[in-house]
């Protein structure tokens, strides 16, 4: 992928740019804890992925909700109406929820 061989030689200004960047970055290493933390986080992520999405979100991912999963009941819509009903007419609210 690289075509560095075809690069034109750097002028003195470009050499200064390169040296400045290298001076700042060379010899600096990430802390060893970064690796350990990464692996711990990845392990947690792996466990979460194995469990699947939380039950209440199952519908969002197009999965069949289990018997114990949360599902919207008719009461739910009454609550929504209490929240948004006064701001909209009954007709438009009805359109929204159907």
């Amino acid at each position, binding site marked *: 992928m690289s075509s560095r061989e075809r690069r034109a030689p750097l002028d003195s200004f470009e050499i200064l*740019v390169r040296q400045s960047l290298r001076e700042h970055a060379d010899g600096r290493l*990430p802390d060893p804890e970064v690796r350990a933390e*990464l692996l711990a986080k990845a392990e947690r992520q792996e466990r979460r992925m194995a469990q699947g999405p939380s039950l209440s979100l199952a519908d969002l991912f197009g999965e069949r909700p289990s018997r114990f999963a949360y599902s919207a009941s008719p009461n739910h819509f009454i609550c929504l109406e209490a929240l948004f009903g006064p701001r909209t007419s009954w007709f438009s609210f009805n359109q929204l929820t159907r």
Partner: protein
Amino acid sequence: MAGIVTKSSLNDDARLILKLQSGDLEALGLLYDRHRLPVFRTALAITHDQDAAQDILQECFLRLHTYVHRVDTSLPLSPWLYRITVNLSYTWVTRRNKWRAPLEDFVDQLIGPAKYNPEPEAERRDEMRLMQRAIDGLPFSQRVVIVLYYLNDLSLQEIAVILGVPVGTVKSRLHYGRENLRRQMEGTAQSAEVQYEFT
């Protein structure tokens, strides 16, 4: 990771990615060991912040873990990692600039331009420090190209692949980035000389 991607390194990466796809977390550790330095150095050069660079490094490999099933093993991994690094650095820089820029302007006013130092070695060090500041002051799109080209030694084609832009765009960003740096350095040198004359 920087520069030429050899066939054996491509095979090694592919082997490790396949292992990671099958849930072997040790493979993630080995991929981290292989690629951490260029990712860290790139993030450090763009952000100028050790802690931010470490966060970006960790997040980059966490994303590799999350999206490993989407990684094409027939392609080299390094451009993918560079792209994530650049994106994460962009997020960090834009968030920081919201509150940092006014504070820095104020500090600049208090400190004033760098003093002229007649010692050649010290002068060189001053020059490099000013250059680092000038790079830090470049627009993000130009700064990234300057870092990938001069620090990571990548070709224009490689940078174009990483950034997902045409080679011509990379060329022009590199050109304008260099011109901006030249202008900033000349401006700083002039103001330093003026200050020296009056002191």
